[in-house]
């Protein structure tokens, strides 16, 4: 099959120009509504439950979920489905444990909640470290991924791709703040859900709308595998000659069975904990809860988001399986070894170059939106937590806050582009796992303890956050993911691929012990007041 992937086709450019044009027009409109800090950080708290649900889905469904999981299913089969479920199960936990208290207690960032009744400066500094590390690793993974993907799809150079993404997303955040970012997320979520739905329907139409038929055809589809045969060496008795041969054979039933992804139970549970509870510590997700007017809208937005994201993860495997039959594993691997181009190639087979152009533009919009959300979260930690509360002791004027937030956006945006260029060609897949590990080990324990535990103290919060952050970074470095895969040492010093089960437990333990060893009567007294706000919303922003 001839593919126009990698060449900038007219349709791809047209869709790309339309999407960027519309989002920049919205940014222009939003810029005139972004004057106060409340508007810049929280869209004036005017976003509805449905809108925020879509925007949360937009923030969360990255190019890695769309192209990555479709590719994983296409190349590895059922293992891709196991991975997909892990990305969803954090949402109910977010609802049950922190969504409403988070909305009622905070103002612009999750650090507002942790610092609510504790000493502002130490807690803000620690929370900002946890928050910025999470956002930074997540951003590096997104930038490197976007450079590679855009290069594959449009054929422009990696550096230009990173610069274009950086420039467009900075325009959104800098001028339109949270209002523009929210609308970019909503547009992206609608486009992505529409695109994947059309792909799914087109795939199913090829198999008489019978998933069973699709699965059967997956097992029958051909793929090239390398087979090693051994034969006695005629010239050298007793020895054997190995010959490697490439043969075509059916994919087989294995594609529909669990494979190598889940083997060790402890490893699997540890990764599961990071994916599930890491969501409860992702600053760019938590920040979205301040854009809605009250806890009720926060609750609704989680239900909508869970519905959209769940639907997405249920249908995306059909796209992946469809690609292994209709495109074939050989061609997918030839274009990109990781399988990331499975969905765009499938779009080309099913709808020709125009549909490929549409899907490529949707993937591009997906990248832009996720990076914009991350940049806003990173900038908020710098400006709201560090500048306003640590440097200015909470005494910054409205005008000052907005100016500093915009400067922080520029700083974070430029850093994102530079890091994207620095990490070109590096294996950064582990950085998403690292971001989730830090989120669930540094940010989540202190957030939960500050909401539910009266005796939680400043020392407990600071030690819990710092321990969680540095322990998860350290353990990932000496784990198989970095120590063996990147540094090429033969064996890892720490056995688990994701450290969450250890680092999160230690972080909770340190938070509790350090709290018990110190005492803050003011914080305990404030806990009672806090309850009115947590549960009834009295005094909430």
């Amino acid at each position, binding site marked *: 099959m001839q593919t126009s992937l990698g060449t900038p086709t007219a349709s791809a450019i047209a869709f790309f120009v339309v999407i960027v044009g519309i989002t920049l027009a919205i940014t222009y409109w939003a810029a005139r509504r972004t004057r106060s800090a409340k508007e810049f950080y929280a869209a004036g708290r005017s976003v509805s439950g449905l809108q925020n649900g879509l925007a949360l889905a937009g923030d969360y469904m990255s190019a890695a979920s769309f192209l990555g999981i479709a590719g994983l299913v296409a190349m590895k089969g*059922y293992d891709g*489905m*196991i991975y*997909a*479920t*892990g990305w*969803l*199960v954090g*949402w*109910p*936990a977010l*609802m*049950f*444990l922190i969504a*409403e208290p988070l909305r009622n207690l905070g103002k612009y960032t999750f650090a507002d909640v942790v610092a609510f009744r504790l000493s502002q400066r130490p807690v803000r500094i620690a929370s900002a470290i946890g928050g910025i590390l999470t956002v930074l690793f997540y951003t590096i993974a997104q930038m490197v991924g976007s450079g590679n993907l855009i290069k594959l799809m449009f054929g422009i150079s990696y550096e230009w791709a990173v610069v274009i993404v950086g420039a467009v997303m900075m325009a959104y955040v800098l001028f339109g703040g949270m209002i523009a970012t929210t609308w970019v997320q909503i547009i992206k979520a609608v486009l992505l859900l529409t695109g994947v739905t059309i792909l799914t329907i087109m795939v199913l139409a090829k198999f008489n709308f019978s*998933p*069973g038929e699709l*699965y*059967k055809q*997956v*097992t029958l589809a051909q793929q090239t595998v390398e087979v090693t045969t051994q034969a006695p060496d005629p010239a050298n008795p007793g020895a054997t000659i190995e010959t490697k041969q490439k043969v075509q054979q059916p994919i087989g*039933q294995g594609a*529909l*069975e*669990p494979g190598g992804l*889940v*083997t*060790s*139970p402890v490893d*699997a*549970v540890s990764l*599961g904990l990071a994916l*599930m509870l890491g969501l409860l510590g992702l600053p760019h997700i938590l920040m979205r809860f301040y854009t809605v007017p009250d806890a*009720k809208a926060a*609750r*609704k937005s*989680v*239900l909508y988001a*869970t*519905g959209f994201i*769940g639907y997405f*993860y*249920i249908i995306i495997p059909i796209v992946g399986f469809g690609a292994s039959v209709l495109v074939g594993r050989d061609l997918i691997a030839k274009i990109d070894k990781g399988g990331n181009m499975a969905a765009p190639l499938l779009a080309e087979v099913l709808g020709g170059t125009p549909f490929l152009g549409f899907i490529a533009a949707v993937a591009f919009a997906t990248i832009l939106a996720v990076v914009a959300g991350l940049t806003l979260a990173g900038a908020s930690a710098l400006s709201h937590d560090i500048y306003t509360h640590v440097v200015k002791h909470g005494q910054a004027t409205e005008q000052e806050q907005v100016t500093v937030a915009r400067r922080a956006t520029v700083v974070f945006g430029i850093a994102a582009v530079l890091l994207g260029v620095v990490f070109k060609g590096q294996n950064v897949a582990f950085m998403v796992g690292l971001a989730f590990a830090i989120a669930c080990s540094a940010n989540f324990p202190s957030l939960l303890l500050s909401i*539910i535990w009266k005796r939680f103290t400043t020392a407990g919060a600071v030690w819990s956050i710092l321990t969680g952050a540095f322990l998860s970074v350290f353990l990932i470095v000496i784990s198989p993911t970095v120590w063996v895969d990147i540094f090429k040492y033969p064996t890892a010093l720490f056995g688990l691929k994701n450290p969450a089960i250890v680092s999160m437990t230690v972080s909770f333990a340190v938070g509790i012990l350090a709290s018990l060893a110190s005492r803050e009567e003011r914080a305990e007294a404030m806990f*009672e*007041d806090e*309850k*009115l706000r947590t*549960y*009834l*919303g*009295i005094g909430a922003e």
Partner: protein
Amino acid sequence: MHKSAHDLLESADFKNLVRKRWTLSIVLTLALFVLYYGYILLIALDKPYMATKIGEATTLGIPVGVAVIVVSWVLTAVYVAWANTSYDREVAKLRDRVKS
């Protein structure tokens, strides 16, 4: 603190509401843990079971994986349904008491 606010915090109604909220949250969180980690551990410990054919080629693992996602959403919906009716009504009553 304002007298009525303090009374409210000490009232049986408020304490009951907070207890009910966390009881439901913890029960649903446990259900979610059993659902998801049950699924993962089932795969880790008994792959052949998940590979059981239930159609011409379809394996048991496929509907089970979809069910994990659907049930997760249903658990979220259960919480929201409770909160929108029972919880919000109680909250409205208690808030009125502080105002009056």
